[in-house]
């Protein structure tokens, strides 16, 4: 069966520090991968999606970047965090574009 992992579960970082959040998927090949951010009490904002290794599409201009070094690995990064980067970050995968998405447990990031 397929599983998706995200780590860490929670993270507190100072403003200006770097960030690296990792997401891995098991039990499937060539998944579509997504990074979302969710502000408190709000809906999900799609940040990045990837249809294959090295292929990244950015949805909104921001302080973040994403990479897909392996088929089932998706990394969210920042060189210098801002206060506004605080939020709940969710990784997801799907078999078909536009189809059902499977979400990871999320990472709660607090930037102080």
């Amino acid at each position: 069966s397929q599983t998706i992992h995200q780590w860490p579960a929670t993270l507190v970082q100072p403003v200006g520090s770097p960030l690296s959040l990792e997401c891995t998927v098991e039990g499937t090949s060539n998944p579509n991968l997504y990074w979302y951010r969710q502000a408190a009490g709000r809906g999900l904002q799609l940040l990045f999606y990837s249809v294959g290794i090295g292929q990244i599409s950015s949805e909104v201009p921001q302080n973040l970047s994403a990479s897909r070094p392996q088929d089932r690995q998706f990394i969210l990064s920042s060189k210098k965090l801002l206060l506004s980067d605080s939020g709940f970050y969710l990784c997801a995968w799907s078999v078909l574009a536009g189809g059902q998405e499977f979400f990871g447990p999320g990472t709660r990031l607090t930037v102080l």
Partner: protein
Amino acid sequence: SQQGEEDPQALSIQEGENATMNCSYKTSINNLQWYRQNSGRGLVHLILIRSNEREKHSGRLRVTLDTSKKSSSLLITASRAADTASYFCATEENAGGTSYGKLTFGQGTILTVHP
């Protein structure tokens, strides 16, 4: 502005009652999906309804889709305290083959079911 807008923003009911949540969207879609999120957790897929479908059932869930009104509703019958969660609709826009097929999520409805 958001593609999907849920209504109401919050809903509080007693166990055993039915809960109805609505979602409106703006563009032509290929499908509409409903997800559930328990506090501080990832989202869980509940149901997907395609643009050529009008109604779909899954256990105690009933979803309707009215493409002429660009709206959908999620009905949870005989609610339980364990149904307490946030519920989100998400749409895959039909952009005539030019869109990747990514989902756009609404702001969600917070459902509280009191025992």
